[in-house]
């Protein structure tokens, strides 16, 4: 499928363009991985993604990658270091298991955004689907719109900020994620409760909003967290298991 090598299309400005109408996902990822050992081209733009899966996965370098158009499943999966922007909608599992760096989605994101991610920063400018931040392990996620049901299910560490509304069973079986929601919460999941918003939380939330470039008043948010009742088995909680 590949008609020319990625290196041939480097422009004089130092910005590399990969057109997925001409090249394959494999070409793109290999070219980006070739930067893992030695950084020679820092800025990349990807054209015609057309909802393809697994774009810009497994990066391990300070790259700036702009993808113009919709992406499929697992875009920016397991990202380290790189700053990736999707100028369009994103499919399931955007930035799944991200370690560091940042991912920004200009449109909506499908389910399991930021799933199991250990670090880094994910901003979704539209809505996120169900299970946003499922089993998250340290990532910070800011969603400008709404999140779907079962968001932050079994969330372990990190922060989830929702500027819109949250769907059913928010934070079910939560461990230690800090959840902030401005709008309504359709229902809280097992062991997730509303908690007092102290100054340290306002500070944390302000910093996240600022970092995401979102103009919202932290005081308008409510904080949710783990009641820690499911941490060790108690027979009285059997119905929640």
């Amino acid at each position: 499928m590949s008609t020319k090598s990625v290196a041939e299309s480097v422009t004089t400005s130092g910005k590399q363009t990969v057109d997925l109408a001409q090249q394959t996902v494999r070409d793109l990822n290999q070219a980006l991985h070739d930067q893992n050992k030695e950084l020679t081209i820092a800025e990349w733009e990807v054209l015609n993604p057309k909802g393809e899966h697994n774009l810009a996965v497994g990066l391990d370098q300070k790259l700036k990658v702009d993808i113009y158009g919709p992406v499929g499943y697992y875009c920016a999966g397991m990202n380290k270091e790189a700053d990736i922007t999707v100028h369009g909608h994103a499919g399931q599992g955007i930035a799944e298991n991200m370690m560091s760096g940042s991912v920004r989605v200009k449109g909506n994101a499908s389910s399991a955004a930021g799933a199991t991610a250990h670090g880094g920063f994910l901003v979704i400018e539209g809505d996120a689907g169900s299970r946003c931040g499922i089993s998250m392990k340290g990532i910070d996620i800011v969603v400008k719109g709404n999140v779907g049901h079962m968001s932050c299910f079994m969330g372990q560490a990190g922060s989830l900020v929702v500027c819109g509304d949250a769907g059913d069973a928010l934070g079910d079986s939560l461990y230690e994620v800090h959840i902030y929601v401005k709008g309504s919460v359709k229902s809280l999941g097992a062991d997730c409760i509303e908690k007092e918003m102290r100054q340290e939380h306002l500070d944390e939330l302000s910093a996240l909003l600022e970092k995401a470039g979102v103009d919202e008043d932290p005081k308008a948010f409510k904080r949710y967290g783990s009641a820690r009742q499911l941490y060790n088995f108690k027979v009285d909680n059997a119905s929640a298991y």
Partner: protein
Amino acid sequence: MTEKKKYMTVPRESATFDKLTMAEIRRAADTGIYDIRGAGAKRKLPHFDDLLFLGASMSRYPLEGYREKCNTSVTLGTRFAKKPITIDTPVTIAGMSFGALSAYAKEALGRGASAVGTSTTTGDGGMTPEERGQSSKLVYQYLPSRYGMNPDDLRKADAIEVVLGQGAKPGGGGMLLGQKITERVAKMRTLPMGVDQRSACRHPDWTGPDDLEIKIKELREITDWQVPIYIKVGATRTYYDVKLAVKAGADVIVVDGMQGGTAATQDVFIEHVGIPTMAAIPQAVQALQEMGMHRKVQLIVSGGIRNGADVAKCMALGADAVAIGTAALVALGDNDPKWEEEYQKLGSTAGSYDDWHEGRDPAGISTQDPELMKRFDPVEGGRRLANYIRVLTLEAQTLARACGKNDLRHLEPEDLVALTVESAAMARVPLAGTSWIPGTHTF
């Protein structure tokens, strides 16, 4: 004055409400929680012991032991991976987590496996430097919890095993009680110390084979298509599951029968879900054959493999390799009678100890307790495991040579007969002395 009774009524134990059953009822009534334990199914199941080999005599010629070659090496992952794995013996080490096992025990598994040129496997909880360092071929498990999952370790792995389930609990998640979530385990899993860790039963970002296909491509893209990707399933609807694993893009399929162990899950799950290992293999092989993929997508089977005869029988039924877990722990020294006194103190006995999740293993293997861990020497453990695998390999070779084979994988179902109707039906080999295979018209 009492008249002596002529006929005494002999107390009769109920087969339905036997002592074990009644003890369980009392335990449940006392505690309000189901029994959680480790290991695999303990009930009697149709097993490889019910199969026999037809050695060579007049119609077939045997090979001379030790002199005439009988190959045991197998290459795994030849379908898509740029770097398939070649193992010198078809006996591999199944996934067992750091957390369930001590770091020393993981190290010993690596040492033993490497000494005999085979692979070992991580588990739920990530890859430790100890096991990576000591394992020449390390399979990295990709599990629903993604504890400790990171791209650096992924790229260090020699293969990736996407775990959908295990034989002890197909359809269930894991359970690690608070006692074992020590500081190091908690850190690797990003959990608060001392919590009961409940692992999910489904992956967080995909469900079903159509989505798995995309997930597998992601893992291949991240690793630049270098390493083989395995799919592990617990044995249930194995015929369909194997077909879907092939369609989803697996290089290798691991089928774990219901005798396969677990660190901890509900006893009701272990004993009542899944099918025996012997019954799963013919289903898996049929699925592969129908797709023209037998030997192209390699099949590893596990669950109750104990000796070289079990290994050879799995191979004869069509497996390319086997994996051992419980047997490997026993080889390391788990459940050794020398700790009998201490097992008694835990309310168990050597050979029956299965409360691995509680972390008080006197043998120092399935524990995170620093004092208990010290009892276990990883160098000696590694040596013992290597010896054991060598014996399994030699035994399997002995049987293969007796059947006239110069390669373990040349063993065929036609080299086997069954002792019982059940085993004949499940393994799809004839009842000994007959040509009758019950139920071959369907599965």
